[in-house]
């Protein structure tokens, strides 16, 4: 399978071409570009936690309504934490 960034680039190209299956209007694409540029300009990337910072702990419900604690996972080994905006 292709690398992740390559697949993202292909998706972006298809989406921004305005072709099916997305049929994205030109104005919508412009709006999304504007929003991304504005978000970058807020400096949010620079303010977020960085290497060397302590990671906040958490206890949250998983997809099966079972509580999962980061402290339990870290007892086993290192942890990859991915923040995902959702599938919508």
């Amino acid at each position: 399978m292709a690398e992740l960034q390559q697949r993202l680039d292909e998706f972006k190209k298809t989406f921004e071409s305005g072709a099916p299956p997305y049929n994205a209007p030109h104005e919508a694409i412009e709006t999304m570009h504007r929003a991304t540029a504005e978000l970058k300009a807020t400096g949010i990337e620079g303010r977020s936690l960085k290497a060397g910072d302590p990671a906040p702990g958490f206890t949250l419900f998983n997809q099966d309504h079972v509580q999962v604690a980061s402290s339990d996972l870290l007892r086993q080994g290192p942890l990859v934490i991915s923040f995902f905006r959702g599938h919508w």
Partner: protein
Amino acid sequence: MELEALQQIHSDVRALGAEIVVLTPELERYTRALHKKLNLTFDILTDLHLNVASQFRLVFTLPDYLRDLYKSFGSTLDRFHDEPEYRLPVPARYVVDKLGTIRSADVNADYTVRSEPSETVKQLQRLVGSQ
């Protein structure tokens, strides 16, 4: 695509004694469906009202004009997240060591740019090798 890519490295991550979790503001009824659809072997955790993402300082509010655009596509965050304010996390991937210290942070406000999961595996290899 991020989730499928993480699924591909999950066995390598496990072999290194490490684990993956995904945090999303989506409610459990949506994470359950997504987890099943993608056949994931790691957990998706519901970060209700972005409490954890806020502590990582990753939260932003969608501008009104973008909210209106997404609504026109039929996407309503208040339904998926119980989140009337339309806040979201910036896409981010962290590697945390056993002591709870962040060892790498990949944060990008442009959600069409992501670092390769293979890089995350390499970071874990260096981390495990140094302990």
